[in-house]
């Protein structure tokens, strides 16, 4: 049973394209996140949703747009991809942000922009 699943696992695309990464969690959690891990393995929060409501939006270019159709899904759409967007993107979920319970992470999507 996969708790947090992301698709695709690998994504290679050209500059200027638009792409989406999907994330689903079957843990019944209220809160979901997108993190970006750069080539130096540094992890940074991008977005957080709680019950489909955006609650955290770090300094991320507006080319990145998260969408949460329901609390089990948080998709990430990226417009006009740039070389600097190449990274591993991790989706995560936690029971409730207010209680700061631990987050469960997906396996990541390795995005390569060429």
């Amino acid at each position, binding site marked *: 049973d996969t708790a947090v699943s992301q698709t695709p696992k690998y994504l290679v695309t050209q500059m200027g394209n638009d792409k989406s990464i999907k994330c689903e969690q079957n843990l019944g959690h209220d809160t979901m996140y997108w993190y970006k891990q750069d080539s130096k*393995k*540094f992890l*940074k*929060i991008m977005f*957080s949703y709680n019950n489909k409501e955006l609650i955290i939006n770090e300094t991320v270019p507006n080319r990145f747009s998260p969408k949460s159709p329901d609390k089990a899904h948080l998709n990430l759409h990226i417009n006009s991809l740039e070389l600097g967007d190449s990274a591993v993107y991790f989706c995560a979920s936690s029971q409730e*942000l207010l209680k700061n319970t631990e*987050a*469960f*992470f*997906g396996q990541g999507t390795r995005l390569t922009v060429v």
Partner: protein
Amino acid sequence: AQSVAQPEDQVNVAEGNPLTVKCTYSVSGNPYLFWYVQYPNRGLQFLLKYITGDNLVKGSYGFEAEFNKSQTSFHLKKPSALVSDSALYFCAVSLPRRALTFGSGTRLQVQP
């Protein structure tokens, strides 16, 4: 603001020896502290957390961490390292209603 520092990029230890991976934090308030492990091409796996209570926290795979408020540290420890412990370890901190802020990661290499 909240931040985490992991001063060592890499820690090398012989199998069977004790290991320590260091973490210090900076927050304005009472922190929630976490350790995660990342194996190659995998997502992060939760190891342990400190929210409140006993300063010594025990977690998965025999790991433990000690919260030291005066030194603002939360070092990860294990009494006897295994080769299979070799991975990338992340310390993280958060405040209520804030997402995790991660350290830069420490690569643990356990030699047979």
